[in-house]
C-alpha cells in the first residue's frame, strides 16, 4: 500500500508561565487545542483521533491524566493514545500522530502535549521521585564539561546561547522568560547551579501546552493557509548507561538525525536546512546538538554560536522561538520544537520568523540523552 503524505496545518500554544492558576489542566489543554484548530480552520468534530503526550504523571500527581481529560481534548468516541518517552515525549507524540496519518488509518489527527509543573515538584520528579536528587542539570553537567574539554570551547559560548535564546523569546508572544535586555554579563554574574551551568543558562519550570493538527494531502488542500510537510521523521532510543557509551554525542542522536536526513534527501544538513528548533534546556546543548546531529563537525559547533551563525539573523538560526531555555513545560517542550519549525516553514512565525525558511529541523531529546525524536519539515509537499 502507498503511504499518505503528512502535513501540520494547525499550531496552537498556550501562554507559558511559571504558574497558570487561571486555568485547570483541562482548560490549559483546551487553550492550545482551540488555537491549533483555529489555525487549521477546523473544529474538534473534524478530528479523527487524538494523541497526547506528557512527561511523568508524578509531576501533577494524576495517574494517566488523559483518562480524565478525554472529554476536554475532544476524544470522546475517538481513539486516544498516550505517549511517554521522557523529555522527548512532545516530539514523539508528534511523530506518533504523524504515523496515524501516513498509514492512512486516520485523516486528521490532533497531537497535544503538556505539563503543568506548578501542580507538583518537578525537581523531585526529575530525580526519579527520590529526595536529595541531583536534578536534570546535575545529570547533564558532567557531559557539558566533557564537551567543553573535548571541543576547546571558550566559557562564554554558554552565555551567548542564553543571551540569544532569551532575546529571541522576547519576540515570541507565548514564551515564558522574555529578557530583551539580557547581556553576557547578566548570565556570567548569575549564580552557578551545576558547573558549568549558571542560573541564566538553565531552563525555567513552566505550565503550558502545545497542539498540532496533522492531516493528509486532501486535508492540507482544504486549508487556506500554507502547510508544513513532513519529509522525514524518526525516533531512536539507546540504553542510558553502560561502559563505552558516548553521552556527549549519543549514537541514538546521530542515527536519528541521519535517518531523517536520508528520508528528506539531505546530504549536507548545514547548507540544506534553513533553521532548527533543537531541545536545549541548558545552554551548552546548542553546540552539543549541532555536533551531535552532524550539522557541525567535531569541535565546530561552538564556533557557529561564536560567529553568530545561530542567531535569528544568522545563516543557520537555532531556536528563534527562544527554545527550551526560555520555555519549558517538559511534556510540551518537544512538541513546541515541531510546532515552531512548522510555523517557520509556513511563514507564520511573526516577529521571530526566519527569512525564507523552507526546510526546518525539529528535535527533542529526553532521559539521560538516550531518547530522540526528530523531524524535517518543508514548505512544499514531498514528491
Amino acid at each position, binding site marked *: 500500500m502507498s503511504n499518505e503524505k503528512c502535513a501540520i496545518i494547525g499550531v496552537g500554544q498556550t501562554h507559558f508561565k511559571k504558574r497558570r492558576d487561571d486555568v485547570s489542566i483541562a482548560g490549559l489543554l483546551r487553550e492550545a487545542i482551540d488555537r491549533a484548530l483555529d489555525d487549521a480552520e477546523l473544529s474538534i468534530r473534524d478530528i479523527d483521533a487524538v494523541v497526547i503526550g506528557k512527561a511523568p504523571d508524578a509531576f501533577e*500527581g494524576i495517574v494517566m491524566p488523559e483518562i480524565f481529560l478525554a472529554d476536554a481534548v475532544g476524544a470522546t468516541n*475517538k481513539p486516544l493514545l*498516550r505517549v511517554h518517552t521522557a523529555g522527548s515525549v512532545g516530539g514523539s507524540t508528534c511523530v506518533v500522530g504523524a*504515523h496515524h496519518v501516513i498509514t492512512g488509518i486516520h485523516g486528521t489527527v490532533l497531537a497535544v502535549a503538556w505539563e503543568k509543573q506548578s501542580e507538583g515538584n518537578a525537581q523531585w520528579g526529575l530525580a*526519579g521521585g527520590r529526595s536529595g536528587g541531583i536534578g536534570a542539570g546535575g545529570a547533564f553537567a558532567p557531559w557539558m564539561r566533557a564537551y567543553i574539554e573535548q571541543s576547546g570551547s571558550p566559557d562564554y559560548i554558554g552565555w551567548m546561547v542564553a543571551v540569544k535564546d532569551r532575546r529571541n523569546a522576547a519576540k515570541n508572544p507565548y514564551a515564558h522568560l522574555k529578557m530583551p535586555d539580557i547581556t553576557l554579563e547578566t548570565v556570567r554574574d548569575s549564580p552557578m547551579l551545576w558547573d558549568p551551568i549558571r542560573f541564566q543558562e538553565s531552563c525555567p519550570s513552566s505550565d503550558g501546552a502545545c497542539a498540532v493538527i496533522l492531516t493528509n494531502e486532501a486535508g492540507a488542500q482544504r486549508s487556506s493557509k500554507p502547510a508544513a510537510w513532513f519529509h522525514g521523521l524518526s*525516533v531512536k532510543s539507546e540504553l542510558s548507561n*553502560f561502559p563505552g557509551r558516548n553521552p556527549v554525542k549519543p549514537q541514538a542522536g546521530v542515527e536519528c538525525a541521519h535517518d531523517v536526513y536520508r528520508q528528506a534527501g539531505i546530504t549536507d544538513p548545514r547548507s540544506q536546512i534553513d533553521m532548527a528548533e533543537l531541545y536545549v534546556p541548558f545552554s551548552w546543548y546548542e553546540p552539543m546538538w549541532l555536533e551531535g546531529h552532524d550539522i557541525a563537525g567535531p569541535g565546530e559547533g561552538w564556533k557557529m554560536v561564536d560567529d553568530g551563525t545561530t542567531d535569528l539573523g544568522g545563516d543557520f538560526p537555532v531556536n528563534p522561538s527562544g527554545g527550551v531555555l526560555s520555555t519549558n513545560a517538559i511534556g510540551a517542550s518537544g512538541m513546541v520544537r515541531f510546532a515552531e519549525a512548522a510555523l517557520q516553514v509556513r511563514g507564520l512565525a511573526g516577529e521571530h520568523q526566519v527569512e525564507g525558511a523552507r526546510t526546518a529541523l525539529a528535535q527533542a531529546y529526553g532521559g539521560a540523552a538516550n531518547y530522540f525524536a526528530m523531524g524535517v519539515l518543508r514548505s512544499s509537499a514531498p514528491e
Partner: protein
Amino acid sequence: MPATDIAIVGFAQTKSERAATPSEVQLLVPTVTAAIARAGIDRREIGFTCAGSCDYLTGGPFAFVSNLEAAGAWPPISESHVEADGAWAMYEAWMRLQEGDIDIALAFGSGKSSPSNPSEVWAQQLDPYYLAPLGLDPVSLAGIQARALLDSGKATERDFASVVARSRRQAAGNPNAQLADASASEDALLAEPYFRAPLRKHDCPPISDGTVAVVMARGDTARRLCDRPAWIRGMDHRVEAHQPGVRDITSSSSTALAARKAGYDGGPLDLVELCSTFSPQELILLESLGLSSAAASGSLSVNPSGGPLAGNPIMAVGLIRIIEAAARIIDGSANRALAHATSGPLLQQNLVCLLEGE
C-alpha cells in the same frame, strides 16, 4: 481502515503472581527473549519496538526507562513507549508496521502491582477536581457498576458467580493463571460474603505482577516465521467520557464502536478474550459485542485462559488477552477470535483486535 497483512508470530508471558521477587525489568527480559525466540528471529531484525507500562505502579517517575533494557536498546533502536497497557503499545507497533519500510515489530507490556496499594494508586486516576477527592477505588466503582447492572435487570448475582466459576475452571488449564479451581461452582461462590456489595471478593481480580511480549510480522515474513500466523484483521480503540455519571455504565458503547472499526461484522467467532476485570464486566462486554447468546449457547468460548479474574497484571493484562487469542489460532484450535483490552474506570477506554487464521 485499510486492510493489513500483519500477523502475530511470537509471544510470551510470565505467570501471574501476587508478588514476584524480581524487578519489573527482570521479569520483562526473559519474556521478551522468549517471544523473540518463539518467533525465531534475531533481535536485530526488529524494526520498531513499543512498550507499555505505568510509572505510578512502580511509584517512580521515569520507571519505564529501566524497561529499555528488555528491548535490548544497543545499538540504538527505533522505540516508543505508551503510558498504557501493552495492548496500546501493540496498536502503535501494528500501525508503524503498516508503512511497509519494516517487516517485524515488537511490543510488550509490564506491571508490578505488588509494591503499591492498587486501590490507592487507581483512585488517583480519577478526575482530580470532582472524583479523586471522593477516594473512590476501583472496587467501589465496580460495585456501583454491578449494582446498576442488577438494577437494570440485565443480570443477577448468580450470573456474576457463573462468570467466576467458569473463569476458575478454565484457568485450571492455564499454567500462567494465578487463581484456578477445576471444581469451582456457582453455589459455593454465592455462599461467600459480600466484599463490596453486590460484589464478592471472587468477583474482583487478584492483585498480580506480570509481563507479556508479542512479535508481529508482515506478509511473507510472517508466513516464513510461523506455520499458522494469527493475522490481525483489524484493531481499533475508542474512549468514552470520563465521568461515570454521564455514561451508561451497564453497557460499553466504545467497545462496540472499536469492534466495528476493527472490522468485526458480527460473524461467528470461535473465541473471545475479554479484559473483564470484574465479573459483571464480562456480561456487559458480551452484550455490547452482540455475543451474549453465542456465549450462553456454548458455541463461543469466552476467556478460555480464565481472563483477568484468574490473573490481572495491570499494563500487561490487556495484551495477554490478545496473545491468548492468538495462541489458539496459531495452534489451530481456533480460526477467528476477538480480543479486548480496557483502560480507565469502568471500561472507559476499550481496544478490540480481530484475529484470524489463514
